[in-house]
């Protein structure tokens, strides 16, 4: 345990918890940005600089914008309705479920004898070797991801514009 890790962990968890509990969507979204930044710091701390930049770029830069768009486009729902009885039940059951999952996971993590070598941490990957990996052995995957991006983009466009004339879709 070192201090940096503790700080990062705190940032991540605190922002996540706050985001999960805020009423105002905008606040939640902004807190989540903090959460994602924390994750990026974690990557940086772990020596994966490139991933950290990617995380910052994609999540902080792009997905947060998407979230904001979504919020603004559906702004009648900026704040949630008051808690109803049924909703409160759900919150309780959710917290219970989450706790159970965490318990199980924590037990599993702690009970597992993980063979690690913290004394000799794997050296950080250079950009060059990463690029060579991506363009070499992983080229197929890169291509597939490219296709996936394209397809999902198209799909998104289709979904969003499916009934642009405002007509009701299928009943």
């Amino acid at each position: 345990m070192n201090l940096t890790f503790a700080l990062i962990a705190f940032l991540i968890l605190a922002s996540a918890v706050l985001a999960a509990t805020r009423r105002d969507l905008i606040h939640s979204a902004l807190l989540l940005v903090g959460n994602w930044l924390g994750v990026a710091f974690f990557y940086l701390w772990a020596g994966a600089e490139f991933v950290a930049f990617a995380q910052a770029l994609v999540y902080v830069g792009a997905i947060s914008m998407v979230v904001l768009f979504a919020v603004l486009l559906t702004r009648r729902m900026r704040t949630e309705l008051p808690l109803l009885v049924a909703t409160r039940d759900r919150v309780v059951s959710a917290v219970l479920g989450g706790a159970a999952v965490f318990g199980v996971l924590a037990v599993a993590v702690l009970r597992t004898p993980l063979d690690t070598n913290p004394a000799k941490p794997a050296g950080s990957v250079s950009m060059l070797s990463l690029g060579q990996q991506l363009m070499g052995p992983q080229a197929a995957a890169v291509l597939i991801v490219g296709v996936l991006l394209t397809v999902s983009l198209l799909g998104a466009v289709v979904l969003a514009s499916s009934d642009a004339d405002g007509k009701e879709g299928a009943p």
Partner: protein
Amino acid sequence: MNMLQACLLLSSALFCIGLVTALSRSNTILVLLGIEIMLNAANLNFIAFWRFSPAGSAPATGVIFVLFSIAVAAAEAAVWLALVIALYRHQQNIRLQEATRLKG
């Protein structure tokens, strides 16, 4: 408890927060944000295992996997934005519990 386990616990906690968010909130956007959190938790695991795995195993696989995961997340985000908008068009709100038309 070594460093790896700490990292794994962190990611477990983050995952559960995400799960609770997704389960408890009725706003579709927030549900999806919860899912994003869970995704990030999974990514944390990759990096942790990569960072603390014994030297000599696959050099950069974890990093590359996370990169792809981020890319997929970006794609996913685009799709869910569209979904949210479509949902909003259909029912004039984005409460997830009301989107039950496809029930059996």
